[in-house]
C-alpha cells in the first residue's frame, strides 16, 4: 500500500512538473527557443506572489490574479526588448543571453529577498486532505494536477482552434512566409513568451505553496521541466504531462527506497528514456 501511495503522490507531483514544462515546451514549439532562465522565472513568480500576498494581505492563490498578468507582461517585454534580438540561425546567442539572465535574476532576488528560504502561506488548504479508500490525498496536490490538465487542454485548444494558435503554428512552420502573410513575427514571439510566463506564474505559486524556495532554486526547476519535455517527446503537450508524471513517480519511488535517492532517481529515469527512446515517448517534432 505504501508503494501505491508513492505512485499516487508521484503522479500528482507530476502535475507540478508538467506546469514547469508547459511554458518551456510552448516557446520551443513556437520559436525553437530554449530559455535557460525558465527555472529562475518560476522562482521569480513565487517571489512576486510573496510580495503581493504580504503587502496586500492576500492569499497567494488569490494573488494569482495579479501574478499571472504581471509575469505575462514581463514575458512580453523580455521577448520584445532582449530575446528577439537573439533569434536567428545561430543557437549560441539565445542560449548565452538567457544564461546571463538566469545569473542576473538569481542575484537580483538574492539582493532583494536575501538567501533565506521563503514559503507562501495558503492557509488551511495546504494541509487539507481527502481520503480515497485506503489512501489520503492532499487537496492542494490534486488542485495542482487538475490545473495542469486544464492548462494543457487550454493550450492545446488555443493552438488548434484559435487565430492566435494559427499565428503560432504558422510562425513555427515558416517565419518568413508568416511575415509575408501579415504576421508581425516580433509580436507573435512576444505573445508566446507572455503566455509561457503566465503558465510559469501558476507553476511558481504552486511551487511556493508546496515547498520552501530560495533565489538559487531555479536551476533544479528548469531541469525538471526540461526532463518532462524530453521524456514526453518534443512539441507534444499531452506528452509533457505524461513526462511530468513519469518524472514525479520516479522521484517518489526513489525517495521510498532512500530519501537521498529522490532527485537522482528522477534523473536516472530520464537518462534511461533518453538511451532507449531518444525522441521521447510521444515525439511530435524534430529538434
Amino acid at each position: 500500500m505504501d508503494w501505491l501511495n508513492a505512485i499516487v503522490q508521484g503522479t500528482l507531483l507530476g502535475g507540478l512538473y508538467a506546469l514547469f514544462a508547459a511554458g518551456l515546451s510552448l516557446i520551443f514549439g513556437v520559436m525553437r527557443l530554449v530559455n535557460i532562465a525558465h527555472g529562475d522565472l518560476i522562482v521569480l513568480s513565487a517571489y512576486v506572489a510573496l510580495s503581493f500576498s504580504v503587502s496586500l494581505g492576500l492569499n497567494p492563490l488569490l494573488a494569482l490574479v495579479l501574478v499571472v498578468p504581471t509575469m505575462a507582461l514581463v514575458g512580453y517585454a523580455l521577448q520584445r526588448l532582449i530575446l528577439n534580438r537573439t533569434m536567428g540561425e545561430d543557437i549560441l546567442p539565445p542560449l548565452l543571453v538567457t544564461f546571463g539572465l538566469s545569473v542576473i535574476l538569481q542575484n537580483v532576488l538574492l539582493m532583494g529577498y536575501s538567501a533565506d528560504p521563503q514559503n507562501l502561506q495558503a492557509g488551511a488548504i495546504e494541509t487539507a486532505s481527502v481520503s480515497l479508500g485506503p489512501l489520503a490525498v492532499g487537496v492542494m496536490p490534486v488542485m495542482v494536477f487538475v490545473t495542469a490538465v486544464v492548462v494543457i487542454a487550454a493550450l492545446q485548444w488555443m493552438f488548434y482552434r484559435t487565430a492566435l494558435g494559427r499565428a503560432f503554428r504558422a510562425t513555427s512552420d515558416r517565419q518568413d512566409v508568416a511575415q509575408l502573410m501579415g504576421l508581425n513575427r516580433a509580436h507573435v514571439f512576444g505573445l508566446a513568451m507572455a503566455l509561457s510566463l503566465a503558465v510559469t506564474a501558476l507553476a511558481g505559486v504552486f511551487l511556493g505553496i508546496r515547498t520552501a524556495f530560495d533565489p538559487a532554486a531555479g536551476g533544479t526547476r528548469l531541469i525538471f521541466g526540461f526532463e518532462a519535455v524530453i521524456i514526453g517527446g518534443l512539441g507534444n503537450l499531452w506528452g509533457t504531462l505524461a513526462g511530468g508524471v513519469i518524472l514525479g513517480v520516479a522521484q517518489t519511488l526513489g525517495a521510498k527506497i532512500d530519501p537521498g535517492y529522490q532527485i537522482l532517481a528522477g534523473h536516472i529515469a530520464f537518462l534511461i528514456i533518453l538511451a532507449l527512446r531518444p525522441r521521447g515517448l510521444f515525439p511530435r517534432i524534430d529538434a
Partner: protein
Amino acid sequence: MSLSVTRRTRLSTAWLFVLVPIVILLIAAPWWAGRADLRLMGEIALYMSLAVLWNLLAGYAGLVSVGQQAYVGFGGYLFFALTMLAGLHPFAALPLVVLAGFVISAPVAVLIFRLRGAYFAIGTWVVAEVFRLSFAQISSLGGGSGTSLSPSIVRSLADGRDAREAVAWWLALGAGMLVIGAVVWLLRSRQGVALTAIRDNELAARSLGIDIWRTKFTVYVVVSGLTALIGALIFLQKLRISPDAAFSANDWTAFVIFIVVIGGIGTLEGPILGTLVFFALRETLADLGTLYLIALGVVAIVIMLFAPRGLWGFLRDRWGVELFPLSRRVSGLAKKEA
C-alpha cells in the same frame, strides 16, 4: 608569382619571442612573488585553462555545455579518492584522473549527443547533477558535507610550506601550458581544420565529407579529460572538497562562460584575454558582491547582443591580429585581387 600558404604572421612570430621570456618569468614566480600572489596566479592559470577548454567545446565544436562542472568535480573527487583511499602519490594520481576523465566522458557523450543544440546544453547540466548527487552518496569521501585532503598527502608534495606553494603553482602553470599547447596542436592538425570548418558552417563541413559526430565526440572526450585534470588541481589548491563546491554551476560554468563571451568566443586568444579581464574586474570590484555578478551578467548579455565576437573578435576585425599561428593566409596573390 608563386602562391604560398602560411599560418605565421609577423605578429605571431614576434609573439613567440615575447612568450618565451614571459613563460620563463612565470616559472621563476616562486622567487619573486609573494604567497598570496602565487595563489592568485595559480587560480588565474586554472581558470584560463577551463575557459580555453570550454571555448574549444562551444566555440569550435558547437557543443554548448553548461555542465562542465561535472568533470571539474569528478576530477577533484577522483584525485582525493586516489590519493586518500588508494594511497597513490599525487603525481601518480594526476595522469590517472585524465584517463578516467576520458573513460567516463565517452559513454556520457554517446548518450547526450542525442540531444540537439540548446537541449544538449541542459542535458549536460543533468549529467552534472547526476555526478553531484552520486558523489554526495559516497560516505568514505564525506558524503554531502565533503572532506579535506589529509596532511600526509599534502606533505608528500614537497617539504615546507613555501615549497608546496611553489609546486602547486608549477602544476597549475604546467596544466595551463599543457591545455593551451594541446589546443594549438589540435587546431593545427587535420582535426582542427575539420573543427574550424564545423565552426564556420556545419552543413558545408558535412558536405565536404567531415564526420561531424566523430569530430565532436573526440573534442568532447579530450576536453572533458583535461577539465578533470584542472578540477584535480583546483581542489589540490583548495585542500577541501564538497559536492556543492565541486559541482558548482556558478563557479565552473557561469564564470567560465562569461570569460569566454567577454574575451571572444571561437578564438584561442579570446578566453585568455577574457580571463585577464575577469580577474582584473574581480580584484577591483569583488567588494560589490552580488552586484558584481549582476554587472558581469549584464556585460555578457550586452556583448552577446552587440559585439558577439567579444573583445578579441573586435580587435581581430579591426586589425586582423592573431597571436597564435592558426589561420592560414595566402601570400603571393596580387594586391588587386586581395
